[in-house]
């Protein structure tokens, strides 16, 4: 069961990355590890540095995939992003967090792909 889940996620990621490249995102890192968690993709898009989180679902019964990016998850992504920026000493650049939401059909192919730009904002 665990292995199935991992492969669903991987399938979703592959689909998402292909989609992003088509949309003009230059993917620089994939599954980048930081002390705070993993960033699915770090990409460049029109001068922005974009941290991408991919969420995949096979059925809609638990809601749209984007809803899986809970506030806790959002905080992790933000922390990971800051860790990345600090390590590269990138202090003064424009960056944001996008979410790609992938719904798989029964054959394992993409049923729908949704890209949400600037999905996570900072509230302090």
């Amino acid at each position: 069961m665990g292995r199935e889940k991992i492969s669903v996620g991987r399938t979703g990621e592959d689909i998402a990355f292909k989609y992003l490249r088509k949309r003009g995102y230059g993917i620089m890192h994939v599954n980048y590890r930081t002390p705070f968690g993993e960033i699915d993709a770090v990409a460049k898009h029109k001068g922005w540095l974009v941290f991408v989180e991919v969420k995949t679902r096979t059925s809609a019964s638990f809601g749209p995939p984007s809803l899986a990016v809970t506030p806790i998850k959002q905080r992790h992504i933000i922390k990971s992003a800051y860790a990345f920026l600090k390590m590269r000493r990138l202090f003064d650049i424009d960056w944001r967090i996008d979410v790609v939401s992938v719904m798989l059909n029964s054959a394992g192919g993409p049923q729908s792909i949704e890209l949400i730009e600037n999905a996570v904002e900072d509230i302090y």
Partner: protein
Amino acid sequence: MIAKVYSSCVIGINPTEVVVEADISPGLPAFNIVGLPDTAVKESRDRVKAAIKNSGFSFPLKRITVNMAPAGVKKEGAAFDLPMALAILSCEELLKTDKLDSFTFLGELSLDGKLKPVRGALPVAIGLKNFGRNRLLVPKENAREAAVVKEVEIFSAQSLRDVVDFINGKADLKRELSDPERILSRNSRYRIDFNDVKGQEHVKRGLEVAAAGGHNVLLVGPPGSGKSMLAKRLPTILSEITMDESLETSKIHSVAGLLPPNKGLVGTRPFRAPHHTISDAALVGGGISPMPGEISLAHNGVLFLDELPEFKRNVLEVLRQPLEDGSITISRVSCTLTYPAKFMLVGAMNPCPCGHFTDPKRECHCSPIQIQHYLSKISGPLLDRIDIHLEVPRLKYEDLTDKRRGEFSEKIRERVNKARSLQKERYRSEVMLFNAHLEPREMEKYCGMDRESEELLKLAILELGISARAYDKILKVSRTIADLDGKNTIEAHHISEAISYRSLDRNLWG
């Protein structure tokens, strides 16, 4: 990059300058507002964002920090929406700076970018003079109110887009011009008149005396005898509100959100009649974010408390300070506010719980203890501030059907004005204005009686058992009656009339 936009807010009814600053930095998009915003201001985030987007601009995806200085003053209300939006747009270098710097801005924004009216535009306009600023931009509905301040240029707009185009010189906005005196006189017509009331000549005379000297009144009578009707018409015989008084009162009404759009100034003396279930905060002012209470809304006018014994005792207690000082001070942890509250108090009550104690036609069903309990609800100190008691009897059948009518308010007001000018002249070097405010020491100086009246007063004290407190009141009211009579020295018939206004001392409070 930092941008600054000038705005203003009102603490109590006093305006204070607020500078709205915006800073935009690269980083994870965020939009934060600091400077002690209250909930409405915190919600500005969503309004400003939507308004900017829907006005044809793109909202910057950056770290935006908006500060409202001074940071220690609590900011309330949505009037800062417009300055915030302008500050953000200015940061994005979308605005020319000359008009942006010379104007002060106020306005709530709706999601589609339209400007919505705010409270307190009038006190803000008045305050601008003191801050050395002379141009104000407000939502259209607030223009007339603010324009009575001639020293400030008032412009109005209907949307964020219009304001931006105006600032960048691409479009013009309407400058609101005003003739405050004309507005005042246009707003000074009453729809009611003393002439509306049939009979009750004795009560009308009593109210005339009260109006002339600024004395507080208590009306006692059975239900339906016309107490409310008479009280409501008291403002029509008070002297016309002056421009200064109107500005003061209009400021308070503006802050309370009671100045209707396009009205400009309050032209008639306010008449406030709160229900007896009112809370103390609503009566004198206060609440979590302090607002003026009924007594301040009645400033320069009349506060009518109908069914006086039904008011909660603690609520009546808080009336003491304002009746004494003409103002109310409300203390909070963050600040202390003082609102003006100079008003004439008119109370009305039944003589007993069933209302028919003094009624010759109906029988009273109350026991003496019930009556005692009912009357004792009004505290001594409050009664102490009431100079004139008027019995309002049930209207006789002849009066109801009498075709003849009493005097028009205008006629009565002429006499009241004459008496008031005498007082103004007499007290021009003193701190108080009217006979009602005389202190015992001043009474000696100004209430000279002839020998006949002195004798009469002495007799009254001995025979009727009039207390020292009642004596002072009789003297003050006699002074007013003499003024109405155009006499400098108080004569015996003035005293006897004044004594008649204390009849309730004996009848009810034994």
